[in-house]
């Protein structure tokens, strides 16, 4: 089966006051039909810009995109604007972080969900659209849709707004959904609901989802494959289970070990070993491997040259030339046992 979305050597640069910034640098990955693919990274990693690049959404500064983005075989970057607008919303849809801001505050939600349907000719007329909207609202879990279809966005809570936005995105039954941090702004119990909803819809509608997030937990729960991004580049790409089991890039390993966990034996006091330093300046990134100033495994060879992704095993890609040492060393970020922590208050009780 050929991939639904195939991104090859995508580079996106934008013009700012400080000069030209390369936000996405030579990124390549592909997405199968019906698959949930995660893009994980911190701020400045370029993950959000990838979604905007796929849809060729006009950014606020002049942008330059090169490479190839093949969707169902067609190169999106080569399409004329009119063809692109026909694709947007119909075959590819996007859901963003701040749902309330994504909705027009002066239009009822029913109209906003129906808009794409009417625009792309999926619904025959207003009445048909309304019926479809009600069905969609039910599908995304909005209770009593008949009563709420004419409500305005401000009358919905954050989680409900996100459901409305998802309904609008799915109005024309797209094949690809770009979800740019859809749950970051939501409470954890609502996040749980929305992620499970996306999972169900994905199954039911054979929907491929590109899920952009900064939360490793979300990736672990929702994505089959994941790409880790750092400073505009993909540094590791693998199946989620394999990556969490054994990361093959020091940054992925670092992300995994600097996140505290809810589980585990409560007595253990392993100190989190944070990744030292901070993310690089996009205008002036380090030479060679961009992570090398912060990497405990860095050697001289890491400071210059190109570090493209290469395939270690079928389906496992990494950009680190020292991945074998990494695999052998176990957890390079673990500190040997507990740094001093003050005694627990209740321990004396036992």
């Amino acid at each position, binding site marked *: 089966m050929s991939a639904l979305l195939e991104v090859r050597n995508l580079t996106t*640069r*934008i*013009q700012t006051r*400080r*000069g*030209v*910034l*390369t936000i996405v640098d030579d990124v390549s990955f592909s997405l199968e039909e019906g698959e949930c693919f995660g893009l994980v990274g911190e701020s400045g990693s370029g993950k959000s810009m990838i979604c905007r690049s796929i849809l*060729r959404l*006009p*950014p*606020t*500064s*002049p*942008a*330059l*995109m*090169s490479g190839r983005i093949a969707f169902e075989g067609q190169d999106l*970057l*080569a399409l004329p604007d009119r063809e692109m607008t026909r694709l947007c919303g119909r075959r590819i849809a996007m859901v963003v972080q701040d749902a309330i801001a994504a909705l027009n505050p002066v239009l009822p939600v029913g109209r906003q969900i129906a808009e794409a349907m009417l625009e792309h000719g999926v619904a025959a007329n207003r009445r048909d659209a309304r019926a479809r909207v009600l069905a969609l609202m039910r599908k995304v879990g909005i209770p009593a849709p008949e009563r709420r279809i004419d409500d305005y966005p401000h009358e919905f809570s954050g989680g409900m707004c996100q459901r409305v936005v998802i309904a609008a995105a799915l109005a024309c039954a797209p094949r690809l959904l770009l979800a740019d941090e859809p749950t970051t702004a939501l409470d954890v119990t609502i996040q749980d609901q929305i992620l499970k909803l996306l999972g169900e819809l994905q199954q039911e509608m054979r929907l491929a989802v590109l899920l952009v997030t900064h939360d490793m937990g979300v990736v672990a729960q929702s994505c089959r494959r994941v790409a880790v991004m750092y400073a505009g580049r993909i540094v590791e790409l693998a199946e989620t289970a394999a990556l969490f089991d054994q990361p093959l890039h020091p940054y992925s390993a670092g992300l995994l070990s600097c996140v505290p966990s809810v589980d585990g034996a409560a007595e253990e006091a392993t100190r989190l070993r944070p990744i030292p330093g901070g993310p690089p300046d996009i*205008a*002036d*990134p380090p*030479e060679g491997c961009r992570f090398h100033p912060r990497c405990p495994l860095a050697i001289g060879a890491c400071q210059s040259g*190109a570090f493209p992704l290469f395939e270690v095993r079928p389906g496992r890609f990494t950009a680190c030339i020292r991945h074998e040492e990494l695999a052998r060393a176990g957890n390079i970020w673990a500190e040997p046992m507990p740094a001093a922590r003050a005694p627990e208050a209740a321990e004396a009780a036992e």
Partner: protein
Amino acid sequence: MRRSTRGWHMSEVRAAAAAALPGQRVPEMLGPRFLPGGAFVRRLGRRGTLIAGGGMLAAILLASVFAAQITPYDPIAQNLRNTLQPPGLAHPFGTDNFGRDVFSRVLHAARTDIQIGFFCVLFPWLLGSLLGAVAGYLGGLVDTVVMRTVDTFMAFPFLIMAIGVIAVLGPGVTSMYVALTLSGWSMYARIVRAEVLVARRSDYVLAARAMGYSDARIVLRHILPNVVTPTIIFAVTSMVLVILATVTLSFLGLGLPPPTPTWGTMIAEGRNFIFTAWWMVTLPGLAIVVTGLALSLLGDGVADLLRGESSR
């Protein structure tokens, strides 16, 4: 491109991209287009208004300060044998109906008018900002009282108020200051109050309260420096209007008494001679236009500068 692209312009990047990917389609540029001419023109444009306005104003100020050196004529010296001379070598702006040199009068008037303009922006700015800050920070009754006072002053037509003040205090510099300050302060109060209402809720003000700082310290040291930017922009751009207001008052005879030259009085005096001695009216008018233009450009430039700085 692996090199740092700091400071590059997009056209340079596009050329480099085309060179690096020979034979492939040169990528399209999306988003707003820039004017041709490249980076230099753009950088100049940003500061252009500031430089132009500042330069013009500096020239005018210098000319007015060194008026005595630039022209040998006394602005109030009459020469009844030399009245209504057109502009020529001896008198570049001609003479008026009393034989006074118009150029010299224009320069001396610049001093007076710009000085009044400056102070009649400074005093309202000080008064309005302070009252607005207090109203915004304290809220409640103080806020209501100050704001209703603002409303009252704003409701007064400017000329009526000016006439009233001058009727009470008599014509002269002081009454000009009072009249213009009374009519001008209310806008600053509104602007500052609105900004303070927002700033009051911000985390750094809350942190200042958490530090145990007194209200006075918080308002003066923490809030005001952060809300002053829109007022500066407003002040510089309103200097033009203030000067026009002084011109209007002078024209109506409410300004400084003769023979002190001000542009407004010069135009007033010259209106009977428009057809015979156009230079008496037109040239002071031109001076007003040029000064107004300089201040507008300066105001725009300052606004751009301050807004650019305050964005992170």
